[in-house]
């Protein structure tokens, strides 16, 4: 049976979602593939603020941008390592993938590559108006995949 795909990111790391993924895996005797997406939105918005409002030069702004992303990567690695320990404890087979970029794009890409048939993912707290006007990453992912999705509210 294929692994369950657990989707995490810099802003989606709900313990509820993680627990749900491992419990489901154990129940169905499947493994877990943990995808960690380093969301580039926050560093990019800081870059814009520094250059537009702060009138800071491009180089120091870019250096900060890269530094923030590097930190997110370290955190991503650490999180995945923790999950690896959890997987060992629960005797669940475990695989990790770390990607940087747009959350929706990277999710879809990995779902396709891994041919995932079950995805577990966190839904962030947002107002319906915000979802309606600015769209929803989860709705877009859900539309474009065949696989089952379990969405856990933050």
């Amino acid at each position: 049976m294929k692994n369950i795909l657990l989707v995490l990111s810099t802003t989606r790391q709900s313990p509820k979602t993680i627990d749900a993924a491992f419990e489901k895996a154990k129940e169905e005797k499947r493994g877990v593939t943990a995808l960690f997406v380093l969301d580039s939105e926050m560093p990019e918005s800081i870059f814009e603020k520094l250059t537009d409002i702060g009138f800071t030069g491009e180089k120091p702004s870019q250096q900060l941008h890269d530094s923030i992303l590097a930190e997110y990567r370290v955190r991503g690695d650490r999180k995945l390592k923790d999950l690896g320990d959890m997987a060992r404890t629960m005797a669940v087979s475990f695989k990790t993938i770390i990607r940087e970029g747009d959350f929706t794009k990277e999710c879809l890409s990995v779902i396709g590559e891994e041919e995932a048939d079950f995805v577990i993912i966190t839904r962030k707290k947002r107002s319906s108006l915000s979802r309606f006007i600015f769209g929803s990453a989860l709705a877009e992912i859900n539309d474009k995949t065949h696989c089952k999705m379990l969405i856990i509210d933050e």
Partner: protein
Amino acid sequence: MSKKEDAEKGIINCPFNPGYLKLLLASHGMRIEESIVDEIEQTLKTRRGVSGGVELILPGDVWVNVPTEEDFAHASPLTLVKEKKKFYITGYGNRIEVSIVPQPAFYEKVTSRGTPYYQIAVLHGGEVHITPTSRCSFFELNANCVFCHEREKFLPIAREFITVEEVLEIVEAAFNDNLADTVELNIGYYDSEDRGILHLEPYIKAIKRNFDTLVSVDVQPPATNSWIDRTYAMGVDKISYHMEIFDKAIFKNLCPGKEKEIGWQRFAEALQYAAGIFPSGTVSTNLIVGLEPAASTVKGIDYLTQMGIMPILTIFRPLKGTPLQDTPVPEVDDMAPIFGHFYNAVKKSKMNMSWSKNVSTYLTPLESRFFAGEDARFQVVMQNIYKTKVGGKAVRGYTGLRRRLKVKEVEDSFESSGL
């Protein structure tokens, strides 16, 4: 002519239902008066398959493709006659003036590589249908749809694919001669994730880059929905994934290749997904009337229209050389309620029913109004507007703008789709 003059000439006027006549002609075909057989033959030279009949224009600007070669056509109660340079359909005590769509010189032309146009393209109303390749893997797998011809029996083409340049020549010729203003590309089954749309991509891009037109495609549903996104982004304005049969058991029997390689469920999923991407009324699927019980077709109409998918109700035509050649054609009186229901279902779904115009091979939703007792004046007016130059330009402008707004991310260059 006044009613008195009509009576003197022996022409009987009765309440005329062009939709009914179209169904009658499409299902029963017509005989041709002996004196005009040769003349009519000229218009049939390049016809084949389900569009292998004579193209007529009935009153009300209703186009119909009428079988004449099949056995059932030779026994038709309707006959085409000519009197004082005018053509009439006679039968059941009636006589209706019609026009013949002449054989355009277009078909006589050859491409720069020497391929006759008629081997690659067919004109249907205002559309030029181009099949860049005669190949359909269902035939190779010995799992073709039971009611379908193998193209190669009729139109051998030496090369697997005609070139993009040849397609552009054909489109230019069709447009310049005012024979068409839109293009449909179709391709048989390909055993790949994209199911053939990738082969059509260069043609679509080239057409969009060189002509201000709408492009439809008729392909099999791809394995994943991201290909449907790409289909829209590459410049396709209308899409058809032909389900053919709604009843799953009959589908499995009559379309073994589609069932085995794709699956009925995938058809439904892909259509539903496409309906969320393409504009209203531009996602369609064939349902062949007469190959499954009427109740099943009606159920199919409801199922599809509720999802925003436009059913195309083609009338079963038993083609010579296929296993179903002896299957009886459906009766008009049995079909009429289906079309009445069809019109009401499309109307209820609020889908745009004015896209299809001058279609001869099936009854359009608007034409189906004749079976629901409705005038549909607004939709008819809209369709007439779409048929004008300005209306056509507005529609193309809208579709281009819609694509520009909706397609968020494109990594390759898509100048051809106006992005």
